[in-house]
């Protein structure tokens, strides 16, 4: 054990100046937002420590990327391997100590952040939320750290290790962004009158990227804070609901962290002394990342030729970086050919309506409640300049009135069908509909109505006038071209 202590002492002695510099930077970055944006009780939009929390997320993620490179840089140099490998310490312990130091560096800003609660008395109600956020950010950073460490172990040169570290983060962001873009393109194509990803697909793909989840959680915080300011209650419960927090997530992150840590340790154990400064040949580095990055880009906009060329050039650049020379192989061309075929996926999804998941219309029996807003453009003496917009804010809360639902869905179908067929000559107005479905999801639709729907609209208006929930007609703007 004395050699392990000796190694810890050496790590500390060797890194203490850098560590203190880092600590000072972290403290400054964490406290600066609090000094620049002090907490104000009337400030609903941003809860206290919001910006510090943002800074902490960024510090955590940056460290998760940098620490594996810093701690294991000695593996990438033949001369330093000659110094460290003969030391009388087991390889797995050498790995463990370096790994633990990196993990400690990641966790320290989080601990600092927790201490910073102590001098901000106004945030008492927020403490449990920040505790959960801090713990989750630390866990997510450790997951990223473990993942990057594993891939760094597979690299033989520092340049390759840097590529792997950047690629891990980039692939996560690209996959999420590309999945969203692909689904958005498909939804836009199928459902012309609106619709969003959450309506048809779960946001599980966000799980690919801890960074995006972190930002998503933070973006939900102000809304929860506003709710808390207006209605009171428990800010943690409000945030958990707003963020759609799944208690299964920490378990998954922990599992991934432990899994990658073990894999990284095994990869370190299997690493040969002669590997350093050699070409990185592991299929888990260049082949995997260049393929994933290219596929993500192709997914992003598979029908665009310019995107295809960009993805193809980047693919060759990444492969040339792996070989350290410009290389074009038949295998690469084959990959790009099959990669290009990804546009078939978009087409297939469009043709099959997202494998039957994406629906333009919902049947009245699928709908729980509805909220409608009409905007009519009424013409005064056929003079556009004298026209004005009338809004019918017919209801201020969702209605479960079955007849209303039926009439709205009928109008929706009729208007959208005409838009698709290009039959609209003159737009009479627009309708915005929010459906709450019986399966718990929400759907938002926006469509135009023409004179052809006049009869349907008139029937609907007539019906609404008799309903208690009807708020009546409000003229929003009567001054198109006229000064009142």
């Amino acid at each position: 054990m004395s050699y392990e202590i000796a190694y810890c002492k050496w790590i500390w002695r060797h890194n203490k100046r850098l560590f203190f510099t880092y600590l000072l930077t972290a403290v400054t970055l964490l406290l600066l937002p609090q000094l620049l944006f002090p907490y104000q009780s009337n400030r609903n939009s941003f809860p206290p420590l919001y910006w510090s929390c943002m800074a902490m997320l960024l510090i955590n993620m940056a460290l998760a990327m940098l620490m594996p490179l810093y701690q294991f840089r000695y593996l990438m140099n033949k001369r330093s391997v000659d110094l460290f490998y003969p030391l009388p310490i087991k390889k797995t312990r050498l790995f463990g100590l370096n790994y633990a130091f990196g993990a400690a560096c990641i966790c320290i800003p989080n601990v600092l952040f927790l201490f910073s609660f102590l001098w901000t008395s106004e945030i008492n109600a927020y403490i449990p939320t920040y505790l959960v956020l801090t713990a989750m950010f630390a866990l997510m950073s450790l997951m990223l750290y473990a993942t990057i460490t594993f891939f760094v172990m597979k690299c033989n040169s520092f340049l390759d290790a840097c590529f792997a570290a950047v690629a891990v983060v980039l692939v996560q962001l690209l996959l999420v962004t590309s999945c969203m873009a692909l689904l958005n393109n498909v939804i836009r194509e199928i459902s012309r009158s609106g619709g969003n990803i959450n309506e048809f697909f779960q946001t599980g793909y966000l799980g690919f990227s801890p960074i995006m989840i972190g930002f998503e959680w933070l973006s939900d915080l102000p809304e929860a804070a506003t709710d808390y300011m207006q209605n009171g209650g428990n800010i943690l419960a409000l945030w958990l609901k707003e963020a759609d927090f799944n208690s299964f997530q920490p378990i998954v992150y922990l599992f991934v962290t432990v899994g990658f840590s073990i894999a990284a340790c095994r990869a370190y154990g299997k690493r040969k002394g002669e590997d350093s400064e050699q070409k990185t040949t592991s299929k888990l580095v260049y082949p995997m990342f260049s393929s994933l990055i290219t596929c993500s880009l192709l997914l992003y906009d598979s029908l665009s030729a310019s995107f295809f060329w960009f993805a193809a050039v980047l693919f060759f650049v990444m492969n040339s970086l792996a070989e350290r020379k410009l290389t074009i192989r038949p295998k690469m061309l084959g990959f790009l050919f099959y990669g290009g075929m990804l546009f078939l996926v978009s087409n297939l999804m469009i043709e099959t309506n997202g494998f039957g998941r994406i629906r333009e219309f919902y049947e009245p029996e699928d709908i729980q409640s509805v909220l409608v807003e009409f905007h009519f453009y009424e013409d005064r003496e056929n003079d556009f300049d004298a026209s004005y917009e009338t809004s019918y804010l017919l209801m201020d809360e969702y209605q479960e009135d079955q007849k209303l639902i039926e009439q709205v869905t009928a109008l929706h179908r009729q208007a959208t069908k005409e838009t698709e067929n290009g039959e609209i000559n003159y737009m009479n107005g627009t309708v915005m509909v929010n459906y709450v479905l019986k399966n718990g999801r929400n759907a938002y639709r926006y469509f135009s109505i023409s004179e052809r729907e006049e009869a349907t609209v008139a029937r609907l208006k007539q019906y609404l006038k008799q309903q208690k929930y009807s708020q009546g007609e409000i003229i929003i703007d009567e001054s198109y071209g006229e000064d009142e």
Partner: protein
Amino acid sequence: MIEFQHVYKFLGKKQVLQDVNLTVPDGSVFGLIGENGAGKSTLLRLLSGIYQCDGGKVLLDGERIYDNRSCKQQILFISDDPFQFFHSTLADMKRFYQDWYDIDEALYYRYLKLFQLDEHEPLTNFSKGMKRQAFILLGLAAAPRYLLLDEAFDGLDPIMRRHFKQIIADQIADKKMSVIISSHDLKELQDFCDSFAMLENGTIQTSGLMNEALSDIHHIQMAFLTEVNPEWFQELDIITMQINSRVVKLYVKGDEARIRTYLESLKPLVLELLPVQLEEMFIQEVIHNKEAVHHEL
């Protein structure tokens, strides 16, 4: 005692060591000689636990060395181009080694004075020879059971080499240290090593005690009345033979008395047996092996 038993090592696809069998006795200076790329440094890296052999075993007192803490504790490897931390000084490196090896402070300062090195000067400002001295100094002050030195004399001036040899001799006597040295400077090794191994293309060509090996090879010059016929020497274990009309130069292995008796029976006009240097022996062995490969092809 260090043993290599049927050791094979590949670096990438290239076979660097092939069926190496070697024993390094304790308390001696062991020289590793061979051409560039013969596998000397690989052998030292296997011994220090940097590399793992692809076949066979590298043992210290019967225990495998690779990833074996107790074995590695007894070995200190100084590579041909030692690594130093960013902007570190000799004092910093000493502190690093101190955590792992029992550095004798008195000895360290004695050698520091002898080598006239500034321990607070960054090692990057040292010349190649000074850097070499600095690391050898650390290795000697650490006094491990086995000190492995790759290209030990590289960059050292003659005075330093003399100091260095003297210190090693003292250390072997005082602390029962063994030194394994790889070097191209065969003249330096000859009067310094007790035993040696000659590597060629990843295999051990010759090994054993230095004196015995040198006394087993003979450099012979002979002159005859008539043109020399190579068939006359077929009875001998010839390493190389150079015939110039009536004069012949031979490098022959074997017992000196037997060789002399045989050659005298050929009635030469002149017969001279000259002492062989390690460098000569190395060159002749290499030439002999290359010619053998040529003939096979």
